C-alpha cells in the first residue's frame, strides 16, 4: 500500500462537466495490501463516476464486512457510506433505496459476504430487482481472517498453505442469471479498460446490476495452483468483446463493421456498444447467456464482459407503485391523516 499519497495535484487536471477533477472522486487512503485487486476496482469506480459526471452526494455507497467491504472508504469521500454488518448490505440498501429512490445505490461486497453469510440477502435483492449496482470483489478466500477458502473457491484450487479445496464453487454470475437479474457482468480487476465501461453501464441500468469481478488476493491466494491468482486469471480470462458505454448526449462518430457491433439501448437513452471479437452469444437473450457462461466454465475459462442485460424489467419501486417523490421527502401534511380522519376511524370501531 501507499503510505503517503501526494497531496499535490496538477492544476490543469482535466475537469468533467460538473467542474470536478478526478481527485474529487477519490476517497481515503486504502489500508489494503499493496497490489490488492480491490484497489484497482476502487480506482475504476472513481474513474467511472468522474466520466459519468456523477455528483458524489447523489450516490450512496454500501457494503458488508470484509476486505472488499472496506473499499467504499477508499473512493468517493463526498458520498455517504455505510459499512454495515456481514452479509447484510442488501437489506440495508433495500431500505435506503425505498427511502429515497432518487439516489444511486452502489453496493460493494466480497465472496464471503455474498456467497456465504449473505447468500440469502443477495438472492432476494435480485428477486426484488432492487435498483442498485452490486459489485462482488471476488478473490476466493477470506483475507481478514488469513486466507480460508470461500464458497467461490474453485474445486481443486490450492491455497497458499497447500491445501486443496474439495468443494464445488458457487458461481455467482450463473446464479444471478438463473435468478433473473437484469444485468449480469463479469470482469477482472486487472482489466480496467473493460471494468470502467461495465461500471458505467451498471450505474445507468435501472434495476439490479451485478458485476462479479475476479480480484486476486495478493497475500493469501496468489500462489501457483490457485485459480484466483493473477497469473491464472490472466491466462484463463476470455474477453470475447470490448465495450463502450455511450451517454445519451454523445453522437455516434466511429464506424464499426456491420455485424460485429451490437448496440444495447438503456432506459435513460444512453447505450452500450459491444464490439465483438469472438462473442457467440446474445447478451439480450438469457438462455444464450446461460449457455455461454456454462460452456466457458466447463472449459475452465472465465467469461468476462457484459454477460446479460434486460432493460425492460420493472424495478422494486415500480412493483410497489411508490410515488415519484422520494418517501423521505414527503411532508407531515401528506403523511398524517389528521384528527378528522381519526374520528371516522374511531366511529367505525364502536
Amino acid at each position, binding site marked *: 500500500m501507499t503510505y503517503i499519497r501526494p497531496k499535490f495535484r496538477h492544476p490543469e487536471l482535466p475537469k468533467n462537466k460538473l467542474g470536478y477533477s478526478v481527485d474529487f472522486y477519490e476517497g*481515503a487512503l486504502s489500508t489494503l495490501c499493496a497490489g490488492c485487486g480491490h484497489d484497482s476496482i476502487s480506482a475504476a469506480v472513481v474513474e467511472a463516476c468522474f466520466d459519468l459526471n456523477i*455528483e*458524489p*452526494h*447523489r450516490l*450512496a455507497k*454500501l457494503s458488508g464486512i470484509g476486505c472488499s467491504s472496506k473499499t*467504499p*472508504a477508499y473512493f468517493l*469521500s*463526498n*458520498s*455517504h*457510506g*455505510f*459499512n*454495515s*454488518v456481514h452479509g*447484510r448490505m*442488501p*437489506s*440495508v*440498501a*433495500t*431500505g*435506503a*433505496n*425505498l*427511502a*429515497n429512490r*432518487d*439516489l444511486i445505490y452502489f453496493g460493494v461486497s466480497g465472496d464471503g459476504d455474498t456467497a456465504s453469510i449473505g447468500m*440469502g*440477502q443477495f*438472492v*432476494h435483492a435480485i428477486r*426484488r430487482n432492487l435498483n442498485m449496482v452490486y459489485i462482488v470483489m471476488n478473490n476466493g478466500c477470506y483475507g481478514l481472517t488469513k486466507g480460508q477458502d470461500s464458497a467461490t473457491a474453485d474445486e481443486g484450487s490450492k491455497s497458499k498453505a497447500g491445501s486443496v479445496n474439495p468443494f464445488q464453487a458457487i458461481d455467482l454470475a450463473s446464479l444471478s442469471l438463473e435468478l433473473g437479474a437484469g444485468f449480469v457482468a463479469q470482469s477482472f480487476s486487472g482489466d480496467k479498460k473493460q471494468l470502467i465501461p461495465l461500471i458505467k453501464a451498471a450505474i445507468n441500468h435501472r434495476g439490479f446490476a451485478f458485476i462479479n469481478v475476479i480480484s486476486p488476493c495478493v497475500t493469501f491466494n496468489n500462489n501457483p495452483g490457485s485459480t484466483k491468482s493473477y497469473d491464472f486469471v490472466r491466462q484463463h480470462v476470455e474477453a470475447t468483446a470490448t465495450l463502450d458505454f455511450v451517454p445519451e448526449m454523445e453522437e455516434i462518430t466511429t464506424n464499426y463493421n456491420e455485424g460485429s457491433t451490437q448496440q444495447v439501448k438503456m432506459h435513460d437513452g444512453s447505450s452500450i456498444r459491444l464490439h465483438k471479437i469472438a462473442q457467440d452469444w446474445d447478451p439480450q437473450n438469457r438462455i444464450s447467456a446461460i449457455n455461454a457462461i456454462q460452456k466457458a466454465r466447463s472449459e475452465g475459462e472465465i467469461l468476462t464482459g457484459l454477460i446479460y442485460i434486460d432493460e425492460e424489467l420493472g424495478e*422494486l*419501486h415500480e412493483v*410497489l*407503485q*411508490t*410515488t*415519484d417523490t422520494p*418517501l*423521505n421527502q*414527503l411532508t*407531515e401534511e*401528506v*403523511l*398524517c*391523516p*389528521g*384528527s378528522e*380522519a*381519526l374520528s371516522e*376511524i*374511531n366511529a367505525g*370501531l*364502536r
Partner: protein
Amino acid sequence: MSLSADKVNDFVVRFANVNGTGSASANFLFTKAIFRMGIYVTPKNIFPSNIQGLPTWYEVRVSEKGYLGRREGIDLMVAVNPQSMLEDVASVRPGGYFLYDSSKKLHKEYIREDINYIGIPLMEMCNAAYTDARQRQLFKNIIYVGALSALLDIEFAMLEGLLAEQFAGKEKLIPANVKALQLGVDYVKNNFKYPLDIRVERRDLIGDAIMIDGNSACGLGAVYAGATVAAWYPITPSTSVVEAFSSYADELRTDKITGRKNVAIVQAEDELAAIGMVIGANWNGARSFTATSGPGVSLMNEFLGLAYFAEIPAVLIDVQRTGPSTGMPTRTQQSDILEAAYASHGDTKHLLLFPSTPKECFEMTADAFDLAEELQTPVIMLTDLDLGMNDHVSQPFIWDDNRKYKRGKVLNADDLEKIQRFGRYLDVDGDGITYRTYPGTHPTKGSFFTRGTSRDEYATYTENGAAYQRNMDRLTKKFNTAKNMVPAPQFYQDKNKSDYALFFFGTSTYAAEEAMDLLKEKGISVDAIRIKSFPFNQQVDDFIKSHQKVFVIEQNRDAQMKSLLLIELGADPQKLVSVLNYDGMPITADNILNQVSKSLSPSLNKVS
C-alpha cells in the same frame, strides 16, 4: 341450582370451538352486541398454532365494574367441540351452565351434578334448515348466538344491526343469518326458562370507547407517525401489525386516481433482512419500522447492536409470545424484556415502551418514532399477544393536529454551509445526542461513513482506546438524556400512603388494577405504579425507595423486570417481591391477590 345471586353484567362465557369452522365471526358478533349495549366486555381468543381442526376457545368476560382483565371461573360454557368436551365440562364453576349440542345424547362421563345443562340440537336444527354443508357448519355458530341472546337477554335488534353492517354490500346473505339467530331464540323460548340468572342489562358505561386489537392500533399509529417504509417477516402474534398498517395505508396513503403509494411495504426474506431494511431506510431519512415476536428479536440482535452503536433510528414492535425458542406461539407472555433491553453483543442498551391498551399502542407507536429520531437509536415497543391479537374496549384514539413530528438533530444544506467542519459524532450540545445528515444533502459537506466499527467524533475509523471510550461514555450520556424523554410512569395515588406497592406494566395492568380493589376489600391498601418505558427515570427509583415492599408483577418465569430494576437502579433485592404468571394465559386479578396476600400474611391460605 343456580349461582348465588343474579349476576347482571358480571359473568364469563367461554366458547369451545373447532379451529377453522367460522366460529370467530359468530363469537365476535356476541361480544360486539354486548359492547353496543354499553357494557364493558373483554374477549380472549385462546387458539392453537394450527389452521384447521384443533380445539380453540373464545372467552368473554362481561363486567359492570369495568374490569378488563381475564377472570377465572366459567359461568357459561358453550361447548360445540367434542374433542375438548371433558375438559370443558370440568372448567365450569359450580352452579354454572353448560350449553351443548344435544343432537346426540350426552354421555354420562360429561354429567356433573353441580352444573346446569342446556341442550340445544344445533346439528339437527341446521340439517333441517340448510342443505349446503358449509352453511350447516357456519349457521350452527349463529344458532347458538341466537340462543345466547335469549338466555342472556341480549337485544335481538343489536345482533340484527351488526349482521347488517357485516354484510353491507352482500345484503342477500342477511336473511339466512337472521333466520339462524331466530332459530336459536325460538328454541330457547320454547324449551327453557329464560333469561338466566346471569344476564346483561343495557347500560351507558363505556361512553365513546372503541373496540379494537392492539396490533391494529400499532399499525394505525405508524400511519399517523408518518412511517413510510415497513419491512417485516410474518410471525405470530405480530403479523397483523404490518397487515393493519398496510390496509390503513391503502386507504390513507394511496393516490385515489393514480394508485401510487406514499408508503413502501416489503415482506422480507427473514427478520434479519427486515430490520436491515428498517435501518437502511431510517439512515436515509425515512421513518421506518418492523414488527416481530421473540424469535425475530433474537435474529435481529446483531443489527440492533449496529443501530445502537452507529446511532441510527429504528422502531421495532415486539408482540411477545411464550418463549423460549418456539415456545407456545399462540400464547402470551412478557418474556422478551431483558432480551430487548440489552439486545446484541457488547455494551448495548435500548429504549423500551410498554403499552397496556390499544389507545397506548396507537400513541406509543407514534412516540416511538419521535424518540427513535430524537435519540438516534432503536426503540422497541414491547406489547404482547394478549394486547396485540385480542379485541379490547379502549378509550378512543386521539391525534392533536398541532403535534409535529420530532425529527431530531438533522442538518440540512443551509445548516452545513454555516459550519466549519461537520462532526457526525461530535457532542455539540452536551446531551450526548449528535447531529446527523441524510445522504444527498450537500455536494461537498456533511458526508460521512456510517460503520459498526469504532470511530472518532468525525466518523473516521479508529482503534484508539481513548476515542472508543469517549464514544461509549457519550452513548451512556445519551441514554441518561433519554430518561426524561420517555413516557413517565403512572401513579395511582397523589401521595404514597402505604408501605406496600404494586409495580406493573403492559397487559398486567387490568388485572393489577382489579387486584388493588380486591385487596382494598380485604382491608389491604397498597400504592401502585405503572411504568411505561425504559430507561427508568428518577421517579421510578424514588417510588421503590419509599416503599418497604414492592410487588413486581410480570408475566414470565425469571422475573425479568425485577432483574432490570436490580441492574439499572441497584434496588434492594429484599424489597422487590415477584408476582409471576407464566402459563401462557393472561394474568388474573385473583392470581395477583393470592400471591400478594400470601406474601403479606404468610399464615393466610388461598384467598379467592
